[in-house]
């Protein structure tokens, strides 16, 4: 069951990324903002693997975030699932050597994530100072996340392509 193995490996990658994001990445925070590794992961796996992969990875990232957030379970999951799905819709435009589209997608996903978190967790509680949140949380996190993407882009793409190749090779073996 190669598909299952691939999904288990993806789940393990999500767990490791979540662990890094909560511990080491917090130590390298600039202006008390740290990058969002889970968005990079969701977006990348989404636009390489397609809609279904995007949904799966988004669900894993979201549920893990929900467990430790102490509030209602499922809200972050919903946000990440849709981000994964939208990135999956762009799979047909993606080719391996491209850098601009993935960067644009990750930046767009991060911005969308910031907006939806604001809307779901702050707007509904009557916090209307959107310009403050935009300038001090959403934009800095966006910039930092895109910066980190440029650093880890090559290894990340290599990992995801290796996972896809591994699944395809085993599928061929069954013939």
């Amino acid at each position, binding site marked *: 069951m190669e*598909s299952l193995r691939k999904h288990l490996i993806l789940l393990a990658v999500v*767990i*490791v990324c*979540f*662990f890094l*994001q*909560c*511990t*080491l990445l*917090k130590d390298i925070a600039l*202006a*008390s*903002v*740290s990058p*969002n590794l*889970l968005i990079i992961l969701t977006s990348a796996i989404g636009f390489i693997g*397609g*809609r*279904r992969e995007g*949904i799966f990875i988004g*669900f894993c990232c*979201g*549920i*893990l*975030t*929900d*467990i*430790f*957030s*102490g*509030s*209602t*379970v*499922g*809200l972050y*999951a*919903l946000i990440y*699932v*849709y981000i994964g*799905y939208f990135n*999956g819709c762009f799979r047909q435009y993606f080719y391996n050597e491209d850098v601009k589209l993935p960067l644009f997608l990750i930046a767009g996903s991060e911005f969308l994530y910031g907006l939806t*978190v*604001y809307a779901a*967790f*702050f707007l509904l*509680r009557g*916090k209307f*100072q959107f310009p*403050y*949140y935009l300038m*001090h*949380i959403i934009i800095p*996190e966006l910039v930092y996340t895109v910066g980190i993407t440029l650093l880890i882009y090559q290894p990340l793409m290599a990992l995801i392509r290796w996972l896809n190749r591994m699944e395809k090779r085993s*599928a*061929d073996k*069954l*013939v």
Partner: protein
Amino acid sequence: MKKKRNTGLNLTGNHLLLIVTAVCFLLIGVSFFTESSFAPLRFFAGITVVPMEKGLNTIGTWIQDKADNYETLQQVQAENQQLQQKVDELTIENDSLQEDKYEMQRLQELYKLDQSYQDYSKIGAHVISKDSGNWFSQFVIDKGSDDGIAVDMNVIAGNGLVGIVTDVGSNWASVRSIIDDSSNVSAMTLSTSDICLVAGDLTQISEGTIKFSDMENNDNDIKVGETIVTSYVSSKYLSGIVVGYISQIKVDPNNLTRSGLITPAVDFKHIQDVLVITDLKATQNSAD
């Protein structure tokens, strides 16, 4: 000819999206109405992420210890001399404080305060991870229900209130700090017992302050520097825990209430070890 793999269910991406959306809404609904997250999820978190975080914490502490050992002997000797001086000074200070303590005990009895928080039973814990995003100020500690931690237990650090436990697994617990945007604490001034509401705010975190509001605008003269402690009327927080010190106070336009800013007693940028008070306010109230 290559045979196409039949996945059996043959779901398209869009069908999957609808199904997963429905599942998410179900989860939101169930967790919203039952006020808890799911035991299997907590168990899963406890066996995957938490051990890694604890391991990293152990490694970090070990490295810290080794680095500390490299101080030279002379440094240690000079420090020893300084400390001896300090001990002598503190002994003198302590003697005068003892006098103050007796007076305070007498006054406390006069005000019929039941317990100061020095009497509560406490468990020490390490902070092993922070919140994964940039919007909230929550963290995870390395003790859980196996160690006696339960939801709504107050968390303090050396000088004052840090937060409250919001979720508990078997070997971890998540704590919401008082500077978190969704945190609200019922508090009062130490000298005059005027009740106010202390709320964390994301816009204030960068300045290192939290807001307070709804303090009665009576004849009591409340100045900057006044100590704010948790009040008796809070349903979740034990009374008498230091929250912080007033850094700004003004009368509201309605002339009936006062509001302002508080500097928390705890430095939230550098929290590593905390104490969890295992007495719950709810059980205290029912025991009376």
